């Protein structure tokens, strides 16, 4: 499909995407976490771009972060220090895990971009005071953006931006729903490209492409095959090979609990009199990340319901090596899923070390088992 190819091509080189955006001209604000309020960045007239590691060899970041730091944090720092992110005009760090928290300091202290902001979000999301604080923090970020943009962000700007991102999110949800209804309707690697592309490409372009893809997918049918339905859980998954290897083994991803997946796009921003309150509401109520707290059992309940809703045969935990929040949740989530009679598999990933041969074998064994 032509539209899907556009995504596949685009994500091959973010610097090309960046130079197109900059030519408009538009400034680019990078971020590493799905709690970044993109709607605000976009409303200020900037382009919000999720940062991934280019997975280059760690050389300069060695001088700042020990080897027991996750490969995402080390990799993105490496990209920045070695100039691969020179297209950035700024970055924003929403508060997430301890590693990103310190990356923010290191980034600021060694900073070379015009704009820098910490958005110190609450870590607990289930109280009224956290709700108020969330709104305060977003308002403060809005002011910082206004200074950078040298203009006011109006409510109209915000609602337009919210609508755009809601639209993108809704369409991504539809594509996921279609894949769950008709597994195999879209190749895993293509799905990956669409989601990743949506996080880095121009939202206007994404907003045009997605509905066409949805319409096309609605028309297609796939022959009923005996596939194993898989739900993936973890932080980021930035490797199309994983999707391909899983498919080769006979499994299809029908849902995910990833911050580069459904955790990022599920849930619309509600209508509210005040757009900032509305953005805050979504951040508070969306599928929770393990670095945040809603209740001791929120994540388990979420994942079980996601797996059941998608009739998953298996759940694969894809954890990034040295990622604390996810590693702490793993034994509990595994138990919760297995209690439902669903099998699980743990894959530990590291951007710097990938062993696709071994991965293929592990997937095959797992798929045969379920």
């Amino acid at each position, binding site marked *: 499909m032509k539209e899907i190819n556009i995504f596949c091509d685009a994500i091959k080189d973010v610097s090309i995407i960046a130079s197109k955006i900059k030519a408009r001209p538009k400034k680019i604000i990078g971020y590493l976490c799905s709690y970044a309020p993109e709607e605000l960045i976009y409303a200020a007239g900037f382009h919000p771009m999720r940062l991934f590691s280019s997975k280059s060899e760690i050389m300069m970041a060695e001088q700042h972060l020990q080897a027991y730091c996750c490969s995402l944090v080390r990799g993105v720092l490496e990209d920045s220090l070695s100039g691969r992110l020179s297209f950035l005009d700024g970055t924003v760090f929403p508060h997430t895990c301890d590693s990103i928290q310190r990356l923010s300091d290191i980034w600021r202290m060694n900073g070379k971009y015009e704009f820098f902001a910490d958005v*110190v979000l609450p870590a607990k999301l289930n109280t009224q005071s956290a709700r108020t604080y969330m709104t305060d923090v977003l308002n403060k970020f809005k002011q910082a953006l206004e200074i950078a943009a040298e203009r006011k962000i109006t409510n109209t700007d915000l609602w337009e931006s919210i609508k755009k991102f809601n639209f993108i999110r809704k369409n991504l949800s539809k594509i996921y729903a279609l894949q769950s209804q008709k597994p195999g309707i879209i190749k895993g690697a293509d799905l990956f490209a669409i989601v990743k592309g949506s996080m880095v490409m121009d939202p206007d372009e994404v907003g045009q492409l997605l509905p066409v893809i949805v319409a096309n997918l609605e028309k297609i049918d796939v022959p009923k095959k005996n596939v194993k339905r898989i739900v993936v859980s973890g932080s980021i998954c930035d490797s199309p090979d994983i999707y391909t290897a899983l498919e080769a083994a006979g499994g299809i991803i029908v849902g995910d609990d990833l911050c580069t997946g459904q955790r990022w796009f599920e849930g619309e921003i509600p209508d509210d009199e005040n757009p900032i309150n509305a953005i805050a509401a979504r951040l508070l109520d969306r599928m929770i990340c*393990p670095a945040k707290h809603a209740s001791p059992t929120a994540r388990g309940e979420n994942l079980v319901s996601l797996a059941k809703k998608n009739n998953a045969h298996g759940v694969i935990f894809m954890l990034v090596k040295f990622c604390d929040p996810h590693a*702490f949740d793993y*034994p509990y989530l595994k138990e919760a899923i297995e209690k439902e009679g669903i099998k699980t598999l743990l894959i530990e990933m590291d951007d710097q070390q990938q062993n696709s041969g071994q991965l293929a074998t592990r997937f095959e064994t797992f798929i045969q088992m379920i």
Partner: protein
Amino acid sequence: MSDKLPEKRKIKSAKKMRDIMTTYYLDAMTAKQNNRQVAWITSGGPVEPLVAMDIIPVYPENHGAMIGASKMGEDLCIKAEDMGYSSDLCSYARTDISCSIVKGGPLGGLPEPDMLICCNNICGTVLKWYEIQARYYNVPLFILDTPICHTQYSPEIARYVRTQMDEYIAFLETNTKKKFDYDKMARVGKLAYTAQLLWQKVLNTTAHKPSPMSAFDAFFFLALIVTLRGTQIAVDFYRQLLQEMEQRIQTGISMVPDEKYRLLWDNLPVWYRLKWLSEKFSGHNACLVADTYTSAWCGAIKYTDENNFLDSMAEAYTRIYLNIGVDQMADQVLDMIKFYDADGLVMHSNRSCKPYSFGQMDIMRIVREKTNIPVIMIEADMVDPRSFSQSQIETRIDAFMEIIKQRND
């Protein structure tokens, strides 16, 4: 530390301290029989409201340190790994989680909590760790969310944390079915404040040359300011300890014989190698005179209002050493280097503690730029001995001390 020291160098108060800690743990272990409630609380959490409510605070991190010091860490860490917890996770958390289940460790496990109080001013690890314990013990969990002050303590952070102090009190009222006694809280607050001041003074005595105690002693004497802050016991003890230190200064008793070099330690102690490290450094006539860890329990005292403890608590608990930006941490390290007149900085790159360890390399660079004292980084873990390579560390310390000697002679 003082075990094998000649009699005159031994710190006399150590015995008293052991007795107090034994009584404290006995009280905690028998809380149920005595109809008292137990709350588990993170090391950086506000304990004063618990003391005011007559709830016994128990610190899994202090317990973790005991596990480390009694060299039981490896076994408990492995047990946690068998339960599915990655070996890359904080070893305090790993040992505590497995200890709850297997009832291991020097005490045969901690007394079961009636409630959990988790303050994330030290890390995000405690958030996950306390969620796990909340599920395991099925008890109420209160989270005090203290947003990190990368560059500032902002008005919105102040409001948020202050509101949570009231929520904390309401939580305690609900779970004890007792009214909160604000007058008692004020008294407890004063005691906590006084003990912190005294603790700071104890730590300050090591600015004297030669130093009457070392950071290894501070690691030991820290336990009371953590666990019994807000009680008369802590105040009395630290007053006595301070007197002893002043006495030692007057009579010229140093902890390290022939102290020639003075070093600053960064990060948590390596609990299972305290003795070895202490002997290693004193063998080079070097004394670790201070550290960034033990001072964390008095570092925010400037934000505390003794006469309005409850209101000032929000700021004091939010702006602690680990909850600020790396550049501010570097400033504090520089201040300490100056105050203690340190000849070198020893950084423990602690695999367990990411918020403490990430940023250390930038602090190292800043210290080198601004002071040109030698800095060494040792890779280890505070409780899990498996990442400690003695021969490698020994070679590095020897080389580091050579540089210091050359610079100072």
